Structures are given as structure tokens and as C-alpha cells.
């Protein structure tokens, strides 16, 4: 009997499987898991590998000197990068529009009049319709008093715009019920002496006049050409409960596309240029036209260009290969929307701008695993063998899943790349890596929800959502209601939360549970489902998913609460049996490679023994 340990160094985790190997087979004792140190396939991996080995030893209750052999996978470095370019922007010039949604605007209806400062109200003539602009620090009682006095004097006060959160308070104290928009942070920049319109919709409704081009035309007496010019204003205001529009001589709202450079794609003996601002579909279509992709370059000075250069540089640093020899073999582009603050806005208005997120991946055949093996040998004082081509060992590990059979494909959805491999009936293994995986999903969730908090985005990605309905119950995203005997803390009250093993964590968004859930599922679908299909199509016989037979999901993402179901649903129309790997019937989707290494070493690997990597 010999004590053997298989170590699988992956992009994000290093797994180990310890076993006794003897005449009558393999007796697996324990397994362990730790974070990979450094880029996979580089000497920096040694530290993580040693940790994984030590943990497995202690879990098995064996001393380090009992170890006979360490088996390492032939890991090759994969470097991935992410970048995002916002391709549209909304600019308000000369403060023509306030389109924000305060929680509590006051009154309702539409008021059209000249803008006048509260302090100047006393000098306004009778019967002139005015929109009163109230600056910071004004008390609601004083404001109401001044407005009532003006009304008594015959001034036609039709609406108000305020700095503080006072609109309801003021309206409750007025002799005439007028629409009031509050929480306008830059109220001092509202131009005075200009014609303005203030609209507040009843609760549960959205504004109808200012969000409509002809409504604006009627309100401000515009001709056809002017109406055309203000139509972006109407579009920007649609869906709001309240809005203010000021007509200024040169005011404008522009909605423009930002030129964000081009990608140069080369492959099949030609090269194509595609503008990033064309969107994800145009980019993916161009990639399809030059398939198989040989290399990608981005325009310098753009986020995407910078990202592609960084990926190349990192690989150069890691492997010592010159940058000219490193080719970016895959890119995934995804359309997304980013909430961004409107330039020139007066109340921190936010508009949803279009953006393109890009994931790129580069891999090299130049592995430095021998250096890792040497370091491990001297650290642990035992023999270290490198064996098994990536993909091949994983497929063999996956094949120990009860119910699986050849031909078998695996999908390993990691952090930076999605890997697929196929073992066909002849024993041949083919493998591909495509760009885009968990990190891109986190990035999409982060930017689409406007969280700017990677941890929070990660939590949304990993855990189901719930809405805290009271201090004693939550409604889960599937509709289940759960009661608690101890009151929930005030910081989660009425919030959308993630249900984590550590408890409920608030998601810092204003949107509904449903909107957060849609963002999460769409991000996963656009990355994991799209990539699973893309990668499988590359390894499938004749590119046909129908010929795949069975697909086993491996890796950390296979433990996700919804990704396996989403991928299985997407594969169902092709008649593919798809499920979560359960290595050796006990290990779940983890440990396929580590256990596979031990099996190959012991000569008990399942499936055809002669295997050729393609």
C-alpha cells in the first residue's frame, strides 16, 4: 500500500484527494480544498498546493512522512480580463430639466409659470403664473406662509421646486393645492425668470404631459422643429412620478453615442475591425466571421484596449514569452446597462446608459509545472509526478459520476473562463477554454444594479433573494414566507436581502426584489448559458450539440443554486442528459481532477485507457 495524493491546481481553487493505492485498488481517505496561489501553472502555485496537501493529510490523520507520491495535473496558465465601455450618455445643457423621482413629491397636477425665487415673491405682479424656487435651509412653515400670503395677494402660484424634503409638508399647509417637486439638490442652478412646468402624478401613476413630446409642445408652445429637439427630454422623463422642465434659450438634452474605439479581430487569414460602440451582437457576429479567432487587439487609450494589453502583459510576466507570441484566442462581449449620473442634472438624476462588457482570455502551452513539482518535492520530501492532460483527467473523473457514460462532455464554469471537454467513443479527448465566467457575472450584477460594491454583487450572485416584509417575516423569491420568532434587525427592515448562511444581508438597491432577481438571472444566462453552449459546440462532433449524449457540470459554479438548472434547461432541447457531477458518487462536482489523477496513477481509471489529447 502506498499513500498517494492527487493535486489539481485550478484557476481559483486547488483541490487535493488523498488515497491508499494497493494491489486491490484505491481507497480514498480524504479530500481538501484551498484557494490557488498565483496564476495557475506558475511556480507561485506551490504555496497553495502545499496547503492543500497538508490539509488532506491532517483530514486523513496521516503524518507527512507517510506520503509516497504527489500527483500534479499538467496545468497551463489561463489569464482572463474584463472591461466595460459605456457607449451612450445623456447630457443636460443649461439645466432645462429635473427628472428625478423624490420619494414624496407634494400635491398633484401640472403647473406652468415663470420661475421666481421665494425671496422675490413679494415683488411679483398679480395674476402672473409663477413657479416658486425654494433654496436650501428654508423652513416648511415659513415657505407655506410666504406662498399663502402671495396667493392672498392675487399672485398665481402654480407650482414650486424645493431643495429640502418638504414638499408634502408645504402642500398640506397651502390654501391652494399645487404640484411641488422636492429634494432638488442643485436648486440654486435652476434659471430664474424662465418659463417652467412642474408636473406631479397621483400616487401610483407616472407623469403624462412632460414625458410626452407633444405634451411638451403644447405646454411650451413649440413648433415642429423645436418639438423634435425636445423629444429626448420627454424620453428621459418617461416613467417618473414627478418632473420639472425649464425652457431656456439654448437648453438641450442630448443623447449621444460615445465613440469608444475599435477591436481588430484576426483569424482565418484575414482581419476585421469592429467598433465597440456597435454593441455585443455586432462584436460576436464579427468574431464568428473570422472564426477560429487567432488574435484580438484593442485601440490603445480605451478600456478594452487597456484590458487586452494587460492580459497580454500579465501572460508575458508569468511565462516569460514575448508579448508578440501571446494571442488572445477568445472574447465574449455582453450588452449591459449602467445607471449613471446625468451630466448637467440638478437633482442627481440617473439615466440608464448602454454599455458593452468584454471578457478576454489567453492561454499558453508553456506550462511551468515542473518548477512547481520540484518545489513541492523539496517541501514535502517525496516524489512528485506530473501527469494527465487537463480536460482528460477531468473527464475521467466526471465519468465516475453514477449514471454517466461515454460519450461524455464536461463543463467547468470557473471564475475567469469556462472550460469544456469531450471524451468520445474512440477515447479521444478534445478540450476548449472560452472567455467569460463567474467574474464577468459579478461585474454585470455590480454595474447593472449600480452597487459599486464587489462584495455585495458577489453575494447577490451566490445567494437567493428575499424581501423583509416585517420585523418577523420575510418573503423569499420563490414566494415562500418564513416567520422568525426573534425580531429581525432594523437595518434589514423592508429591504431586499440575500439569504446567506450567515444570515440576511441587505442589498443596497432601491429596486424591487423582482428587478434584482432579473438582473442576476440575466447576467448568469448571458455568461454561463451562452458560454456553455458556445464551448460545447466547439467540442461536439460536427459542432452538433445533439451528438453530445451526456454533459456533466463540474467546478464551483456547479454548486450554484440555479446555474446547473439554467444550463440543463438550455441543453434540454438538444436531447442532452445534463446534470451536476458526483465524482465517485460521493464527492459532488468537486475533486474530479484530483481523484482522476489518483485513479490514472493506480491504473483503475474508467473508460478507454488509450487517450489522445487533441
Amino acid at each position, binding site marked *: 500500500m502506498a499513500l498517494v495524493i492527487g493535486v489539481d491546481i485550478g484557476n481559483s481553487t486547488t483541490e487535493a484527494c488523498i488515497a491508499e493505492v494497493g494491489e486491490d485498488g484505491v481507497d480514498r481517505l480524504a479530500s481538501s480544498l484551498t484557494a490557488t496561489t498565483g496564476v495557475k501553472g506558475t511556480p507561485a502555485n506551490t504555496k497553495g498546493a502545499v496547503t492543500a496537501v497538508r490539509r488532506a493529510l491532517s483530514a486523513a490523520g496521516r503524518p507527512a512522512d507517510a506520503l509516497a507520491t504527489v500527483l500534479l495535473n499538467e496545468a497551463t496558465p489561463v489569464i482572463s480580463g474584463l472591461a466595460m465601455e459605456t457607449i451612450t450618455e445623456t447630457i443636460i445643457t443649461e439645466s432645462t430639466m429635473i427628472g428625478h423621482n423624490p420619494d*414624496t413629491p407634494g400635491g398633484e397636477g401640472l403647473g406652468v409659470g415663470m420661475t421666481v425665487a421665494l425671496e422675490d415673491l413679494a415683488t411679483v405682479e398679480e395674476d402672473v403664473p409663477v413657479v416658486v424656487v425654494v433654496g436650501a435651509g428654508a423652513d*416648511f412653515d415659513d415657505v407655506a406662509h410666504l406662498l399663502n400670503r402671495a396667493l392672498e395677494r392675487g399672485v398665481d402660484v402654480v407650482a414650486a421646486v424645493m431643495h429640502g*424634503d*418638504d*414638499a*408634502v*409638508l408645504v402642500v*398640506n*399647509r397651502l390654501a391652494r393645492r399645487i404640484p411641488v417637486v422636492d429634494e432638488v439638490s442643485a436648486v440654486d442652478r435652476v434659471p430664474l425668470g424662465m418659463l417652467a412646468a412642474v408636473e406631479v402624478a397621483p400616487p401610483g401613476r407616472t407623469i403624462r404631459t412632460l414625458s410626452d413630446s407633444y405634451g411638451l409642445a403644447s405646454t411650451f408652445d413649440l413648433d415642429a422643429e423645436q418639438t423634435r429637439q425636445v423629444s429626448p427630454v420627454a424620453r428621459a422623463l418617461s416613467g417618473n412620478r414627478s418632473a420639472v422642465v425649464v425652457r431656456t434659450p439654448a437648453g438641450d438634452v442630448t443623447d449621444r453615442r460615445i465613440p469608444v474605439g475599435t477591436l481588430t479581430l484576426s483569424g482565418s487569414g484575414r482581419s476585421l475591425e469592429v467598433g465597440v460602440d456597435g454593441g455585443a451582437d455586432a462584436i460576436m457576429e464579427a468574431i464568428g466571421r473570422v472564426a477560429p479567432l487567432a488574435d484580438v487587439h484593442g485601440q490603445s487609450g480605451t478600456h478594452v484596449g487597456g484590458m487586452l494589453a494587460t492580459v497580454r502583459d500579465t501572460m508575458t510576466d508569468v511565462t516569460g514569452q514575448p508579448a508578440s507570441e501571446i494571442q488572445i484566442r477568445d472574447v465574449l462581449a455582453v450588452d449591459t446597462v449602467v445607471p449613471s449620473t446625468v451630466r448637467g442634472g440638478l437633482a442627481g438624476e440617473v439615466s440608464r446608459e448602454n454599455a458593452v462588457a468584454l471578457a478576454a482570455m489567453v492561454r499558453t502551452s508553456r506550462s511551468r509545472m515542473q518548477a512547481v513539482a520540484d518545489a513541492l518535492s523539496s517541501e514535502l520530501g517525496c516524489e512528485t509526478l506530473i501527469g494527465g492532460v487537463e480536460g482528460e483527467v477531468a473527464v475521467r473523473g466526471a465519468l465516475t459520476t453514477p449514471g454517466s457514460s461515454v460519450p461524455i462532455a464536461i463543463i467547468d464554469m470557473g471564475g475567469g473562463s469556462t472550460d469544456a471537454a469531450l471524451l468520445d467513443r474512440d477515447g479521444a479527448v478534445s478540450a476548449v477554454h472560452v472567455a467569460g465566467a463567474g467574474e464577468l457575472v459579478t461585474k454585470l450584477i455590480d454595474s447593472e444594479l449600480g452597487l459599486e460594491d464587489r462584495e455585495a454583487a458577489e453575494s447577490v450572485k451566490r445567494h437567493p433573494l428575499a424581501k423583509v*416584509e*416585517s*420585523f*418577523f417575516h420575510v418573503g423569499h423569491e420563490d414566494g415562500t414566507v418564513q416567520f422568525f420568532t426573534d*425580531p429581525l434587525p*432594523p*437595518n434589514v*427592515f*423592508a*429591504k431586499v436581502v440575500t439569504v446567506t448562511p450567515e444570515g440576511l444581508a*441587505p442589498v443596497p438597491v432601491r429596486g424591487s426584489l423582482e428587478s434584482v432577481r432579473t438582473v442576476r438571472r440575466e447576467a448568469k444566462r448571458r455568461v454561463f448559458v451562452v458560454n456553455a453552449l458556445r464551448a460545447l459546440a466547439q467540442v461536439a462532433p460536427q459542432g452538433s450539440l445533439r451528438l453530445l449524449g451526456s454533459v456533466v457540470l463540474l467546478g464551483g459554479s456547479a454548486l450554484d443554486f440555479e446555474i446547473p438548472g439554467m444550463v440543463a434547461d438550455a441543453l434540454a432541447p438538444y436531447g442532452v442528459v445534463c446534470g451536476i457531477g458526483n465524482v465517485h458518487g460521493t464527492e459532488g462536482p468537486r475533486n474530479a481532477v484530483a481523484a482522476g489523477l489518483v485513479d490514472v496513477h493506480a491504473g483503475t481509471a474508467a473508460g478507454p485507457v488509450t487517450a489522445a489529447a487533441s
Partner: protein
Amino acid sequence: MTSPLSGVSASGGPGCHGRIDRADDPALPPAVLVAVHDDAPPGVVREVCAGAEEQGVPTAILDAGPGADDAGRHAASESRLEVGVGVGVDGAVVVRHALVPDAILGLDAGASAADLRLLGADAARIVAGLPLRTVG
């Protein structure tokens, strides 16, 4: 404003049903009760009631002893909306829910008008089922 008790001195403004003697009066619409000591600073009560009014939730004022926490407990247990605010003689404020043993929110004496307004708004937001703005 539309309260059957609008004739009563309305120290809390139009969103407030004013000072009431008994909370179980069927003529009184459901309200966030604010229990106040006679000598409590009136400015504190004004801001707390204004905060709730801006959220569209009515308030009513009850007499209470000197301690903010006891006053809040009393107000919450009397309120048909199960939310009460206690204002102590020193101007300290406590927001309580009838079913929750610990205070939900609180401010020490001498808090700014803006903070008091937010606290009053949050008391109303508990009733409305909206996220609180004064806690992370």
C-alpha cells in the same frame, strides 16, 4: 386636517391629530403615537411629527412621563399601528414597535432638526413597510 379631532390644538401640524387623551377612541384614525412629556422641547415634537407627515402617515400626541424609552414603549403599545415615538423631558427620542422588545431607533438629547425629522420619517416608514433611512 380631515381628522374628526381637528378642533383639538394641533401642536404637530396638519398631519397630526393633535393631543389625545385615549388612544382607543374609535373616532381616531390609526396613527403613529408620539408620547411626550409636558416639558419636552416643542421643537423636537414638531420635527418628529413633520417627518411622519412628509411620509403621509398621521400622528397623534399622548402625555407621558419624563423618560423617552418608557414613553416610546407606552406609545407603541397604545398605537393601533403598533409604532410609537417617545420624547423625553430632555429631548431624547426613541422609536419603538409594540412587538419588538428592543428600541428600533433612538436619538440622544440635542439631536439636530434634520436628524429628528429623519427619525420621525423612519417611524412612519416602519408603518408603510419602507426601508429605514437612518440605519445602514
